[in-house]
């Protein structure tokens, strides 16, 4: 009989997938912000 560590496994995979998605989201947000800033700097120059 296996020890019941199912909840730890779910937490582990949740953290791994969650952090990867969070980083991807941070890239998307920073990209958008940079593009908006680029638009502003284009208008001012």
């Amino acid at each position, binding site marked *: 009989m296996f020890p*019941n560590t*199912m909840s730890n*496994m779910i937490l*582990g995979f949740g*953290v*791994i*997938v969650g952090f990867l998605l969070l980083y991807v989201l941070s890239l998307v947000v920073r990209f958008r912000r940079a593009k908006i800033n*680029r638009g502003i*700097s284009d208008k001012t120059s």
Partner: protein
Amino acid sequence: MTLHKKPSLLSILDILSILLFTAVLILILFFTPTELTMGPVQKVFYFHVASAWGGMLSFILAAAAGIGYLVTRKVRWDWLSLSSVEVGLVFGLIAILSGMIWAQPIWNTWWVWDPRLTTTAIMEIIYLAYFILRSGLDTPETRARLGAVYVIVSVITVPLTFFSIRLFRTIHPVVIATGGDGGSAFNMTPRMLLAFIASLVVFTLILADLVWHRYRLAQLQNTIEEEVN
């Protein structure tokens, strides 16, 4: 200077990373055997090792890019170095957190000051300090030059972390073992070994994908900085 259109190879890499990640996750959850003494939590091992591998690979790439910058003085090497360190930090953090979750039911504690865990934490802190160093420097040239020197020196923490389980007494299992040093290594079944190798491959692909995206962001940010100044 303008930001180039997203390369089609990068789009392919995006799709490939998502599809293979999902496939390997299904392989691990439903097609690998459950380890007898640890139970289902052992399945975290595949992505735990793969993310640690990705982090270390990323820091080595950062050092190589640092050498590239010092030799050529081309700013694109600095972008690559910066991108690699950032992605490496994310992978390292995932390895530490997933390891803690795995350790909790097995070692009965979230954290011990074991040589492997300690050297990994030191490695993360050293690379975190890279961003503090960069933020304190005004000119892009100084930032790139000192950043390059910093990542080249810091890469010493990578072999130190990798070999810590062989150099010191530790409770951390040796995963990649040959001959006599494999006393605490897992006896992986063929399906476990397949999932393990597939995890390493998919995390390497994700690493390449994320570094490439971060590189393009650094390129865009540099363009804005040049236009403003």
